[in-house]
């Protein structure tokens, strides 16, 4: 008797049953269906978006051996006449033990060797780690801007070498000149290939350098999830391509309330390729799927699990950003330190 069966059930059943008969149908069935990236289904996937978390999500809060250094977006400066002793002393006093520079300002002035030595000496004296040049720009912008920004990244790599940093950070960008504006074709094959080729060019032009080229996955760009980040590195074919992980930049309605799972998946997929981490938190607070940044530890981010994962990374650095006032930075740090303490994760230094 003929029986109606859906394609999905048929293919699923065929794969599960390991059918091997050489009929045309089963040949198709043996070919794994393309897997869509994303979190697993929870319930009602044939009529509901999978936006609520499943019960009993695994939350392994076992701390790792890493002692997290906190950094913030009150970037260091290399303005002429800077008192580096006072600058790093102030950072330490406020509980910050790492720092990064903004590329446009940092590259705008060529530092004499004596000043480079002075900066390095003061960093060591105050036990502050200068680790990154945070790059502006858009390496896949329409040319000639795209090429100009690639040149900017290459210059940043050389500047990072001069200061013995571990990395530079950039985005892959947007097909519009402004990388923060989502272009409708940012997820097209064209944008992907443009991203890969831009990074290949940067890596080729800096061949031999040990500076990591960290890419920050962002919703508005082609690299907007951990799967894409991993694939990008494979396609560029250079181990210096790393992830500057800002989880909140990858959150959309489908993951807004499933952060524990997104954290587990991301840290598992990107193991060994996370250069450092941004510390932001967020809430979904509007009728449209509009997410807004919230004080660290008060929003949808599973901050306990987040810190536990970070502590398992070698020499972890966490960057606190997108706050408005010095007071907010101190408040964020207090929350982060309290949550870390609760689960036994160690944070370097102390906060006054």
């Amino acid at each position, binding site marked *: 008797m003929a029986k109606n069966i859906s394609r999905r059930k048929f293919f699923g059943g065929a794969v599960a049953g390991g059918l091997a008969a050489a009929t045309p149908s089963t040949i198709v069935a043996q070919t794994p269906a393309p897997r869509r990236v994303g979190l697993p289904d929870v319930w009602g996937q044939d009529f509901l978006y999978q936006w609520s*978390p499943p019960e009993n999500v695994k*939350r392994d809060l076992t701390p790792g051996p890493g002692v997290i250094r906190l950094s913030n977006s009150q970037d260091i400066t290399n303005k002429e006449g800077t008192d580096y002793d006072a600058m790093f002393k102030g950072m330490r006093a406020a509980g910050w033990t790492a720092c990064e520079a903004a590329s446009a300002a940092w590259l705008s002035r060529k530092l004499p060797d004596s000043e480079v030595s002075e900066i390095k000496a003061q960093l060591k004296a105050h036990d502050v780690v200068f680790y990154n040049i945070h790059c502006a720009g858009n390496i896949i912008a329409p040319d000639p801007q795209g090429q100009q920004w690639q040149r900017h990244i290459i210059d940043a790599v050389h500047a990072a070498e001069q200061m013995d940093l571990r990395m530079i950070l950039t985005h892959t960008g947007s097909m519009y000149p402004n990388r923060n504006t989502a272009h409708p074709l940012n997820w097209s094959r064209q944008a992907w290939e443009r991203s890969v080729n831009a990074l290949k060019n940067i890596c080729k032009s800096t061949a031999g350098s040990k500076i990591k080229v960290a890419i920050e996955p962002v919703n508005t760009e082609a690299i907007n999830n951990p799967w894409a980040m991993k694939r990008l590195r494979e396609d560029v074919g250079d181990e210096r391509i790393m992830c500057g992980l800002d989880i909140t930049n990858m959150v959309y309605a489908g993951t807004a309330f499933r*952060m524990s799972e997104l954290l587990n998946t991301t840290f598992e997929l990107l193991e060994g390729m996370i250069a450092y981490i941004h510390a932001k938190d967020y809430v979904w*607070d509007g009728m449209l799927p509009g997410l*807004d940044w*919230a004080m660290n530890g*008060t929003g949808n981010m599973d901050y306990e*699990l987040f810190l536990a994962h970070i502590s398992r990374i070698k020499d972890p650095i966490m960057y606190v950003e997108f*706050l408005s006032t010095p007071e907010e930075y101190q*408040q964020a740090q207090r929350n982060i330190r309290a949550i870390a303490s609760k689960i036994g994760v160690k944070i370097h230094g102390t906060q006054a």
Partner: protein
Amino acid sequence: MKMQLAILGMMLLPTVALAAPDFAGSWLRDNAKSDPAPNTMYWMTRGATTMGGGRGNAQVILNIQQDAKALQVDDAQSAPRNYILDGKPHSRPTDTGIQKAEVTANLQTDALIIETTQPFGGMPGNATLTVKEVWSLSPDGKTLTVTATRDLPARQQTYKQVYIRTQPASAVLCSAGCVPAPK
């Protein structure tokens, strides 16, 4: 003498118990005398505003039912809140339904103290928030003042809400089997 004092003490005990404040009734928030209610749901940054949370100057009416063992608070904007007045911690789901809050309500002779400990937004991994509310009545019983202190590692906030009684108890809460209140 000691025996007399003991007897006197025993005689006073019911009086003390009876003197516990009775919050039952309907209460209208006096916006002029109240602090602006903070957004207890979200702590936004970067100057973002939100449609949830703070109530601004909206009219807020509390309907409270109370008996010797329990207190229930209803208002239009929140889920009903039920408190067991035994001074012991009780676990209940947060508003998100996916985390737990621990609530202790202690009815004293001059005030009701409610302490709640929970993840800030009711989401996994949030910083721990402790809220202490002190409920007290004016001597004539017509004004209710609720002073709340919200403690998060990042900051402490204290704010006061003042309510004017608009109606006496509209119904009796029967936490231990219903005994109609005397008219």
